[in-house]
């Protein structure tokens, strides 16, 4: 089974803090994603990466950055956290080719910014 692990399930941070959300996958997947989930808005793509050191903006990249130094790890960074970034963050991964058409999700990280 594919396993996508988000190291922090629940975080509380102060406004202006730098926040790191870490994600690791164990299936040697090329593609990794960060989504944000808010009630009534569904899932919105923040950033994705299709290779090590490669990244692409998703639909809502403002206020976020990402890092992918190793294939299995994809980090989401909030440079200066704000209260409107309080949300659930979901990491996901997928392989390439036809097998790459299925995206597997982690269990999510609940971030509260106070």
């Amino acid at each position, binding site marked *: 089974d594919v396993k996508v692990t988000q190291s922090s399930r629940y975080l509380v941070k102060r406004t202006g803090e730098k926040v790191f959300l870490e994600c690791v996958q164990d299936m040697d997947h090329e593609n990794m994603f960060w989504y944000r989930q808010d009630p*009534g808005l569904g899932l919105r*793509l923040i950033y*994705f990466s299709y290779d090590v050191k490669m990244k692409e903006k*998703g639909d809502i990249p403002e206020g976020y950055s990402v890092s992918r130094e190793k294939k299995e790890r994809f980090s989401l960074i909030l440079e200066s956290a704000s209260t409107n970034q309080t949300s659930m963050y*979901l990491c996901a991964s997928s392989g390439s080719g036809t097998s790459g*058409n299925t*995206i597997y999700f982690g*269990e999510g990280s*609940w971030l509260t910014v106070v």
Partner: protein
Amino acid sequence: AQSVTQPDIHITVSEGASLELRCNYSYGATPYLFWYVQSPGQGLQLLLKYFSGDTLVQGIKGFEAEFKRSQSSFNLRKPSVHWSDAAEYFCAVGGSTGFQKLVFGTGTRLLVSP
């Protein structure tokens, strides 16, 4: 631009009754379609997917979905709902290219009454 509409925000079904969750998509090419389920506080679990072939696809937990190209729909069904099916359900659409980036609907929350 691709989009997914789940017209029902909430649905309540009696335990043992049948279920149908609606999903309509807009996509300019051959769509790849997915249904995910999310239990409270958890990540998303893949229920089923449609890539090609038989338009009726079977998934886990007794769910099935039917792809209807003429109606741009991919409705999820289950003949007899169990209390453990109470969760939020997301429909998603992606393309047939090797790299997958999904667009999600806003979700339908299923409540199961005794």
